[in-house]
């Protein structure tokens, strides 16, 4: 090797040292930078580079099913194609693509743009929901153009679906996007923005059961947002790299779709009303209908503001659960209360007759009308032909407060205990209440009005059903039951709901026997109010009711709509077979007019349907 000998003649000799020093020091600067990046901050940069390609994707848990007592599915999930964008990878020219391919509206494009613009920092690597539930054709178009749409993903996710559409919609309820308050009020549910939750019915009441636990999955994505699945990619995945979502629990209702269908079919002639079918010996609700109903698919889908407004402000109140949330005058169906009170308090003899002249006089110059002059009436015939005069007389004997006490024993004026759809308590007035409420104080007239289920008495359809069930079963007031059991998604029991007795009504057996006999007479006796609409062979016992619509005076207009609006509500509350009662059915036809014409035939159809269907079921099971 040659020695390095500096030639004095060289023009460069004097400065070569500087060059040497310069080159070496630049080299050291670069090495210094390497030390800084790779050694001092190496760990941080390792994390940053991982953040580049590692993505944690949330896996939403499938929501639990809602099924009827037979295991028929009332609410399930279907595949919906949702479009996600990852801002980090999203290219601006993709907007044109979206506009051309899908003909997206300007608002939808603006929404996506906002999403991408607002995403900052770490959020730029997240998958953000851009379009929900796009049509399948769109999904196919997007999927086939995937390569020119980096940062855009079509993810099949689950969406709530109600295969029976409007059937039992008020029980099933519907879903909606969470509000800011929901997120605050239920921290244990771990809601995230844009999550959905049950907004009413079972979906709302059993949200914590139906909602599963979300899982996650880490993925390796390349710079264009394409997932990498090879072994080399796998080594970057954190441990554990995934957590499988746990599907929500399944809810089995006591509702039987067969009976539900019968009830809804019977109700279909009327646009507005409610009906409920309850098992007499358990308090289990078999069918439950409120009209008009809504389509939960529509409410849980892309509900336009104008359509929402239509639903919520309709005079027919489709969003109101008329079985639990509507309170009504019970009309003559309430006459069982003064009857029971009088019998139990020994204020009436079964053979005591009174004359109905068509009106009842009390106090000075006051009179209350009856439907017509019934002639001589005893308690039984008064119930059968629904004579107001007889009950006016009876209520004067029983008195306001005693009547109220018996009403309360039957469950009126307080919640049934179903804990569903924010049930209303209804109202049972007392003397004290009138004294406080009205300047002129309590009057006998108030008592008379209460006796025939008018004035200030308000009940819910379900309360009436539970009370009639208590008559039918000789004095057991059940808590109504809507949920049969809850299981995990794979069928393991979580909770079985037991039959719950709310109260035993320890009345005399003769009282029950008499009541049932009289109520049977309403249908079977030629003078009974339901006689004309009866179905021969069906052993139905029950009571009609025609509730006056209060506070609605004719405003002079004579349109069909206003005529309808000021018609009375028609009731029928009954059970069958009266010799061994199985079910109680209560029907309310809003503005149905005279009970015998609207509510009774409808109820008969329901009973008929029930027994036919039951016979078929028995045959099938054999």
């Amino acid at each position, binding site marked *: 090797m*040659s020695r*390095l*000998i*500096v*030639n004095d*003649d*060289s*023009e*460069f*000799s*004097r*400065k*070569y040292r500087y*060059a*040497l020093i310069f*080159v*070496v020091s*630049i*080299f050291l*600067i*670069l*090495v210094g*930078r*390497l*030390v800084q*990046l*790779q*050694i001092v*901050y*190496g*760990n*941080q*940069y*390792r994390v*940053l*580079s*991982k953040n*580049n*390609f590692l993505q944690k994707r949330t896996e939403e848990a499938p929501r639990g099913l809602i099924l009827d007592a037979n295991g028929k599915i009332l609410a399930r999930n279907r595949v919906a194609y949702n479009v996600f964008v990852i801002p980090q990878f999203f290219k601006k020219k993709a907007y044109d693509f979206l506009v051309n391919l899908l003909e997206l509206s300007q608002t939808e494009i603006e929404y996506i743009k906002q999403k991408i613009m607002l995403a900052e920092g770490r959020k730029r690597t997240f998958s953000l929901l851009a379009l929900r539930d796009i049509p399948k054709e769109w999904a196919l178009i997007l999927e086939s153009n995937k390569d020119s749409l980096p940062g855009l993903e079509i993810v099949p996710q689950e969406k709530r679906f109600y295969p029976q559409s409007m059937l039992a919609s008020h029980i099933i309820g519907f879903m909606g996007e969470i509000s800011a308050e929901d997120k605050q009020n239920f921290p244990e549910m771990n809601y995230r923005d844009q999550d959905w939750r049950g907004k009413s019915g079972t979906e709302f009441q059993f949200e914590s059961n139906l909602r599963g636990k979300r899982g996650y999955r880490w993925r*390796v*994505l*390349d*710079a*264009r947002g394409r997932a*990498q699945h090879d072994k*080399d990619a796998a080594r*970057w995945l954190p441990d554990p790299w995934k957590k499988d979502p746990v599907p929500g629990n399944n809810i089995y209702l006591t509702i039987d779709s067969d009976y539900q269908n019968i009830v809804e079919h019977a109700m279909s002639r009327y646009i507005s009303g409610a009906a409920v079918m309850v098992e007499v010996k358990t308090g289990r609700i078999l069918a439950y209908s409120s009209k008009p109903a809504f389509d939960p698919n529509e409410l849980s889908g892309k509900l336009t503001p104008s359509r929402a407004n239509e639903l919520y402000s309709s005079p027919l109140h489709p969003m109101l659960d008329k079985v639990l949330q509507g309170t009504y005058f019970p009309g003559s169906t309430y006459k069982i209360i003064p009857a029971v009170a009088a019998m139990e308090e020994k204020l009436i003899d079964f053979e005591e007759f009174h004359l109905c002249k068509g009106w009842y006089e009390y106090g000075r110059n006051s009179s209350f009308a009856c439907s017509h002059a019934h002639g001589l009436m005893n308690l039984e015939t008064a119930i059968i032909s629904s004579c107001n005069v007889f009950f006016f007389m009876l209520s004067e004997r029983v008195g306001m407060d005693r009547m109220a006490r018996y009403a309360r024993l039957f469950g009126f004026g307080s919640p049934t205990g179903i804990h569903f759809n924010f049930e209303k308590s209804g109202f049972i007035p007392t003397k004290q209440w009138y004294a406080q409420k009205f300047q002129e104080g309590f009057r006998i007239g108030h008592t008379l009005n209460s006796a025939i289920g008018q004035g200030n008495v308000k009940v819910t359809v379900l309360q009436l059903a539970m009370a009639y069930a208590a008559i039918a079963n000789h004095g057991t007031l059940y808590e109504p039951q809507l949920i049969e059991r809850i299981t995990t998604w794979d069928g393991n029991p979580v909770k079985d709901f037991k039959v719950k007795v709310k109260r035993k009504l320890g009345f005399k057996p003769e009282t029950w026997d008499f009541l049932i006999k009289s109520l049977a007479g309403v249908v079977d006796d030629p003078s009974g109010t339901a006689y004309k609409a009866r179905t021969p062979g069906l052993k139905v016992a029950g009571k009609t009711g025609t509730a006056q619509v209060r506070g609605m005076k004719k405003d002079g207009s004579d349109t069909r709509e206003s005529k309808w609006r000021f018609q009375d509500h028609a009731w029928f509350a009954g059970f069958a077979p009266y010799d061994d009662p199985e079910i109680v059915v209560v029907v309310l036809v809003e503005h149905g007019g005279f009970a015998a014409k609207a509510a009774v035939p409808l109820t008969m159809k329901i009973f008929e349907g029930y027994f036919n269907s039951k016979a078929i079921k028995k045959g099938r099971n054999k």
Partner: protein
Amino acid sequence: MFEPEGRFYLRVDWTLLILLVSIMGLGLLNLHSASSNLNASMFTQQVYWIFLGVSTFLITATIDYRVYNRVAYFIYILGILSLLMVLIIGKVTNGSRRWLNIGPIGIQPSELMKIAVILALAHHIDASPPKTDEGRTLQELIPPAALVGFPFLLILIQPDLGTGLILLLIFFSIMFLLKLRIRSLVTLMSSIIVLAPLIWTFVLQSYQKKRILVFLDPSTDPTGEGWHIRQSIFAIGSGKFFGKGYMRGTQSQYNFLPAQWSDFPFSVWSEEWGFLGSFVLLGLYTILILWAIRLALNTRDRFASVICIGVGAMFFWHTIINVGMVMGLLPIVGVTLPLFSHGGSSMLTFMIGAGLLMSVSARRQYY
């Protein structure tokens, strides 16, 4: 062979050879990793380029360097002509006219012009020694400045700021090592300071200004240029001491690095081989450059000295600017990493340069 002053010991400079082969080998290895996920044909292409480069190297090294002294201006004029041709019939890519297509292969005359300029400067300096003992005056610097200035302007028109910048840096490197009068040096320095803002206003294109601004504050452009710098820094930093392993760099394999085979091969290397590999690679370049400076001192011939300084400076500035850029120390300029980046013109230019060093080294005098 043309040998005016007696015989040389013709011998192979093994140090130089080993350095060159090592860098090229590592470069090829790295390209295989960098291109595997995108375009595997790049690798084959590069093998052809290396084959062509080695042939050129052998031819260049075999010819006695004093032959180049005679044909220096001829080569220089050829270079200028090809630059003019680029401006007339060149192919436009990414908004600039840099390429000349000769049959199936495209070539960038601006790359090869660096060699032509080095040869022309060497020839001029060899032919005109300083007039006084004090050193060269400013006036004496006008002809060499013109030799660089003309092709520099032609390249700026393309525009190719990176190559133009390298040309200037080679010129200043040679000038710095010449015997200059102190006064000339001071005037030269101050004129650069005065010229800088003028260049900023009149020469730089808006995208180039943007690059410099983004370099000064990468957060101003989180998706564009700034994004490139950040991703490159992530790649290097995340390599840590031992690297992520060959073919296992996530930044490169998952395409987070832009143009990783030509502008960012160092980031790929650094990510996969860590501090250890990066230190070795930088070390190889540094030894090569120091070796060129040492060669410059060991030759009596002023022409040979300027060649060594020029080629050394070319290696030096390319390496510094490229590595400095990918490490976020310098703004992004399209300057290749010698013998490491993918690309034919760059490979050919550096192999000719290396051939010149070998030609000088094989024929130096020993005392």
